[in-house]
């Protein structure tokens, strides 16, 4: 009976030791063995079944996969002192489990260290560039503002500074200035600086990006106001453009009308004049045969047409009409 109990106790002890010495490493993790809290040996990266000294050695599991670092939204300032809300993210992983274990021990602390490092590097980088460099990535040619596209020659006004603040010299805030750095290069620079610090923590940061860049609520309101006033200006432009175009069409119409009417008049005068001239020639040629006869006929004709029943006719007996009478006497 006692023997049995001893056997069972021994057996379970061996079992426990075996269980304590065997451990598995997942594909997704890497393991650091510590003995009384001190790391021993190389970190274990190969997945599968592994063994260690039972009881005294402890298995510390660390993540092997890529991890995302998603920063808080931080208020930062650009070179123009525009306050903006910046949200960055980065991709990182534990490359040196030993260092990581010594410096940070766990992921939570790693995340907060990354918060500090990336936030301050981002802040530094952004403070030296105007907003355009953060928003834009390329020098892609922008179409002219709507007010100039279909405008009738209204000179283009630069839009006011987005922040309403003073734009530094050489950076009129039209949004059309040449981009010297750009979003991609800027994040690359920040990453470069971050990469210089983090190897000491046993981690690697690749690919840092701006997840979001937005105005602060206060600036946003002002930007909305500016957008509204811009739109209203465009609306006013369209309206006056319409009136102007209508006036132009009316003017053209008047011109056309006058042209048509005067052309008609000119042509009519030419036609009638030519006809008159020809008629005159015809008459002159005929009447030249005997101007005397013409005068006679014409004066008789005109008497006929000028005299009517209300006319008083005073005939002298000396007139031709009565001369014949006299002569007869």
């Amino acid at each position: 009976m006692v023997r049995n109990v001893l056997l069972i106790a021994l057996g379970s002890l061996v079992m426990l030791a075996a269980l304590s010495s065997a451990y598995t490493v997942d594909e997704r993790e890497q393991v650091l063995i510590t003995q009384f809290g001190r790391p021993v040996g190389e970190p274990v990266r190969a997945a599968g079944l592994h063994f260690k000294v039972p009881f005294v050695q402890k298995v510390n599991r660390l993540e092997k996969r890529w991890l995302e670092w998603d920063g808080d939204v931080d208020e930062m300032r650009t070179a123009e002192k525009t306050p903006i809300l910046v949200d960055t993210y980065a991709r990182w992983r534990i490359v040196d489990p030993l260092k990581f274990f010594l410096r940070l021990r766990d992921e939570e602390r790693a995340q907060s260290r990354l918060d500090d490092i990336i936030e301050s590097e981002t802040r530094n980088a952004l403070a030296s560039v105007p907003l355009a460099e953060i928003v834009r990535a390329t020098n892609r040619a922008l179409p002219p503002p709507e007010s100039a596209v279909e405008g009738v020659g209204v000179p283009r006004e630069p839009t006011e500074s987005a922040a309403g603040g003073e734009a530094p010299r050489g950076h009129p805030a039209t949004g059309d200035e040449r981009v010297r750095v750009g979003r991609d290069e800027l994040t690359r620079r920040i990453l470069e600086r971050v990469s210089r610090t983090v190897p000491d923590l046993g981690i690697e940061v690749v690919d840092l990006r701006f997840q979001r860049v937005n105005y602060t609520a206060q600036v946003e309101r002002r930007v909305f106001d500016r957008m509204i006033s811009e739109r209203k200006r465009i609306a006013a432009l369209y309206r006056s453009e319409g009136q102007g175009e209508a006036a132009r069409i009316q003017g053209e119409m008047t011109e056309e009308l006058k042209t048509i009417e005067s052309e008609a008049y000119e042509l009519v005068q030419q036609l009638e004049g030519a006809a008159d001239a020809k008629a005159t020639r015809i008459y002159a040629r005929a009447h030249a045969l005997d101007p005397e006869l013409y005068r006679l006929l014409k004066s008789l004709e005109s008497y006929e047409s000028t005299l009517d029943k209300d006319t008083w006719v005073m005939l002298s007996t000396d007139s031709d009409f009565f001369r014949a009478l006299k002569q007869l006497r």
Partner: protein
Amino acid sequence: MSSDPFDETRRQVSKIRRMARTRKRAYAGGAAFVMLAGLGFASYYQVEAEEVAVVLRFGKHIGNQGSGPHFRIPFVDEVIKVPVQRQMRAEFGFRSRSADGEAEGLRDERTASEANMLTARRNVATVEWIVQYIIDSPEKYVFNFRNVEGTLRLMAEATMRGVVGDYTIDELITEGRVEIEQKAQEALRELNRAYETGVRIQYVKLKRVDVPDPVKPALAEVEEAKQERARVINHAREERNRVIPQAMGRKAQAIAAARGYATARINNAEGDAGRFEALYREYVKAKDITRTRLYFEAMSEILPKAQRKILMDPEMKALVPLLNLNGGK
């Protein structure tokens, strides 16, 4: 009957013992059965049609299993089921209520901060879009990244903002849409390739793209002004179209009339001239008598028309002053 008084009792006891023995056997059998069944359940798993199972033995990847029933070593093999056939969809700037995403989505402060982004001229646009993807490498999906979905959201936001930052708001809400969609898709695909997340981006699709809510009325005003411009211009054109053809007609009319006049004038002249010539030809033959005849003919034509006739002799000059010139009536 040499009956033992305890015989009955003894018999009962042994009966109870027998019963207990059989019950113990039954318990043992039951326990063994339950354990076997448990093992059976633990070693059996089923992979659905849309899934692939990634199998880890002692944490090491030993292969994948397609859909169907499968066995595993209980407590040793880990099975991670990955829905490789499932269409995954991430929404930005809104959350659709129904599964198909066609119904009007929900929008709140959180989605608004996803949707708001800066454009090239530093205006603010609200952009809503979706990313559809599928897991094309279950190993990468499981082993490369922790939280692929979350990382993908960060990637999608960063790339979309990167693209929108190079466009103006007018391009965004009009003809630039397709191009932006295309570029955002390319950028996300490229980033996804670099990250090796194990998913394949099927497409990036822009949904609602607009100016922020406070600016909307102003934008509508621009549209209205555009309409008004068109209306005013059309009105002017209409008037022109009414007036000019009419004037052209009047011109043609005047010219035709002038042609008629010319023809008539010349014909009349020819006629008059012919008549005069004919008359002349006869007149020259007897000038004196013809002239007298013409004179008298005319006089006899004229004089009867006049109702008041006064005959005067050169000697009776006194008559004229006495005559009441108005008394005729």
